[in-house]
């Protein structure tokens, strides 16, 4: 730094010869300090047309899912009620037929047990169908399969009982013939 520079820096206060209008400037500053601070600028994204479309699409999608979940829940409760009704109806019929079979004296206990053992297989099938229902597969088809399962069990017992009855009749006819 040479003498010229040193001289200026040492006397730099002498360059401050301008005088500010202090009260005028302060008045303006004070007025601005008193004003509430401007709120942070909010960018209204919704003003952009493509965002409007996107927003409508998202709202629509949301409503669809909500409706779907509600519908799905309603459907589930309907299916559960239907299964209860089916169980009540067919379990009653089935136990009635099993009782009839057990009462029948034409078959030995072993024969009865052997015949009813097919019920175990159908029970396994019934439990599997119930699981399918819980997994939310097409409930109508599964319920139809459950009904078919019950009907098959009842039909088999009924057929057996018919066959026993008809053979008993034949025997009695034979007996009558024989008597006659």
């Amino acid at each position, binding site marked *: 730094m040479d003498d010229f*520079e040193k001289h200026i820096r040492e006397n730099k206060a002498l360059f401050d010869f301008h005088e500010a209008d202090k009260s005028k400037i302060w008045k303006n500053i004070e007025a601005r300090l008193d004003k509430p601070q401007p709120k942070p600028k909010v960018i209204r994204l919704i003003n952009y047309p493509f965002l409007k479309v996107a927003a409508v699409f998202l709202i629509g999608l949301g409503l669809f899912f909500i409706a779907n979940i509600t519908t799905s829940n309603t459907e589930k409760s309907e299916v559960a009620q239907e299964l209860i009704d089916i169980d009540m109806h067919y379990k009653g019929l089935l136990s009635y037929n099993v009782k009839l079979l057990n009462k029948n004296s034409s078959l030995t206990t072993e024969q009865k047990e052997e015949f009813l053992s097919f019920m175990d297989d159908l029970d396994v099938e019934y439990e599997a169908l119930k699981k399918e229902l819980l997994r939310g597969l097409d409930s109508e088809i599964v319920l139809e399969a459950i009904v078919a399962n019950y009907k098959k069990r009842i039909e088999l017992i009924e057929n057996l009982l018919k066959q026993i009855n008809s053979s008993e009749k034949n025997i009695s006819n034979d007996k009558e013939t024989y008597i006659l």
Partner: protein
Amino acid sequence: MDQNILNTHKELVEKCKLGDRIAQHKLYMLYIDAMYNVCKRIVKIDEDAEDIIQDCFIEAFGKLSSFRYESTFGSWLKKIVINKSINHLKKRKIQIVPLNNEIYHLKEETIENSPKMDIKKVSKGIELLPAGYQQIINLYLIEGYDHVEIGEVLGITASTSKSQYHRAKKKLIEIINRL
């Protein structure tokens, strides 16, 4: 820098941080003249300088919470003033650096030891300098900025600032000698 110097007007600054209007006015009164002169030397026009100074104090009071006494309050405030003043010139497309700033600075120029001069003549000489030279002379000689700081403010390299300063000083001495 000595912590006592850094803490100049600390009590007042702390009150200002809390929004104390009386403290804000006291701080304003302490610095207004110096800051107004800094601004006026750069922008020249009274009305522009007044508007810029208002903005500077509003900004300073607004972001005072970020002031951590890493420099003096005065130099912190002066930085705001200089930046705002230079930005004002940029907006008005007023020349802030010489046009040939990048072309002729490769060769270091020899500087003759300049004599002490009358400050009034120096001030007059600065006013007569080409616009591009004035800011570098003001920032280096009067505001005490180094060439790195000047480079940051004016958007030029430190070496460009240095070479342009030497050219500006040479020109200034020529002008003063003719006065």
